[in-house]
């Protein structure tokens, strides 16, 4: 479960990026976060794995209050949350397989098990045959799928994706969304930032609308 209680976030020298945001998400839910550029979508998502810390208010993830968490506990929190970053953050000097292996290197898997998981994740996103390619040799959609494979390789219970379909054509976007849906179906909690209203209508789920740092929840049918 994820809950925000009156969370505000102000970056140094800026106005508030998030302003008294309160919501709560149950395990296994699929949430869309929408809003204009600069509305605070990325900021909200970054608060969950404690990449950013709230200025005030409390963020609770799976029973743990992130705001009060010691820095030394953060790595373990982050391993339990899969994140697809807006800028993907792939390592361009490593091949596809090595990119997916990265998060496995620092969790406690035996090498064989790690390799098996990496291949399973690549298989899931349809990139198994591109193992030895470098990210630069992949299409935009494929890079996005690689980022997803890396996010899910540690089998997180929460999956966060920041505009994963933003620069993709319809077909690629659909493939990417199918992947998220399949994780949703096995009970993974999913939070997706997106501009695409049509997509939200198609896939249902709750929609959080951000405007100027303020969050309002639109019922799913109202999005239609």
């Amino acid at each position, binding site marked *: 479960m994820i809950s925000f209680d009156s969370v505000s976030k102000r970056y140094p020298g800026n106005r508030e990026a998030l302003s008294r945001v309160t919501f709560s998400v149950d395990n296994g839910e699929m949430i869309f976060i929408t809003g204009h550029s600069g509305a605070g979508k990325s900021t909200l998502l*970054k608060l969950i*794995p404690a*990449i*950013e810390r709230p200025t005030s208010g409390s963020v609770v993830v799976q029973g743990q209050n992130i705001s009060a968490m010691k820095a*030394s506990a*953060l*790595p*373990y*929190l*982050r*391993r339990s949350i899969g*994140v697809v*970053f807006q800028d993907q*953050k792939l*390592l*361009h000097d490593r091949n596809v397989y090595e990119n997916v292996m*990265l*998060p496995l*290197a*620092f*969790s*406690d898997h*035996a*090498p064989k098990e790690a390799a098996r998981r990496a291949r399973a994740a690549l298989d899931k996103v349809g990139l198994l045959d591109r193992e030895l390619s470098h990210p630069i040799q992949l299409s935009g959609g494929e890079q996005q799928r690689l980022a997803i494979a*890396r996010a899910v390789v*540690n089998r997180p219970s929460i999956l966060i994706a920041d505009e994963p379909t933003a620069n993709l054509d319809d077909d690629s976007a659909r493939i990417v969304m199918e992947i998220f849906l399949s994780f949703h179906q096995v009970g993974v909690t999913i939070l997706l930032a997106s501009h695409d209203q049509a997509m939200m209508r198609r896939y249902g789920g709750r929609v959080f609308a951000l405007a100027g740092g303020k969050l309002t929840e639109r019922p799913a049918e109202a999005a239609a």
Partner: protein
Amino acid sequence: MRSWLRHHRMAFNSAARKLAAQKSAAFASVLAIGIAISLPLAGYILLEPLRGLLGRVALEPQLTVFMKQSAKRDDADALGRTLRGDVRIGSARLIAKEAALKELASVEGMADVVSVLAINPLPDAYVVRARDTAPESMERLASELQALPGVERVHADSLWARRLASIAAIGRVALMILSTLLGFGLIAVTFNTIRLQILTLRDEIEVSKLLGATDGYIRRPYYYLGVLQGAIGGAIALIIVLTGTYIMNLEVGVLADSYGSSFRLPFPPLADAVSVIVYAGLLGWLGAHLSVSRHLRDIEPS
């Protein structure tokens, strides 16, 4: 436990890979470290024989009073009484000419020479310890003793040894200063290599932090890198010095042999060789620690 070992092995491999990946840059810094360490090490090798020599020479100020070749045992006894009667003299020990010859024969390379002598060319002598050991009073005493009957020559033989000892002491201090400076140099070189590594791998570090790598996991390869670089530098220094000593000994041998001596520059004992590598590794660790603490903090994911 197994995963702990695995993490360390992975960190070590990653460090070795980082070192290998830098190729020429890594080679250059390792070589610079090696050459730097080899300087004080070479000084140590050169000073070491001097220390052995000084250890054998009595460093207390003393005078040797040589008697005339013609002096008889009675003359020697008479001189002995005079010396022991002098308030300025603490002790006077007779070294009879026979004993002196025997001692000479025991010196390396001298046995052959002594054995062909028809007569004993050495005089009786007294080794005199003065109560006042200040150089001026020693010299005054020496010139007075010189005037005693039956005395051929008085030799203040500890003076050169004392000078040598102080030169050696200066040498040791210089070596310590040099080693300390180069130790700081090694730390600085490691600090910089690792700073460059961290800059190059900024993305990887940032992404690793974002994905849940612990600080320890991220730091570990750099510690290994520092230790590895220092230790390899230490090993290179040893190779340089051992090779240098070997080459110099070829010439030293020719010179020493011509004096009938088997003197050679000593090779550092194994324990010292190992500690050179260990110390260099420790300094590398320290440089890595400073660099990592300073530079990894700057990389905060956002």
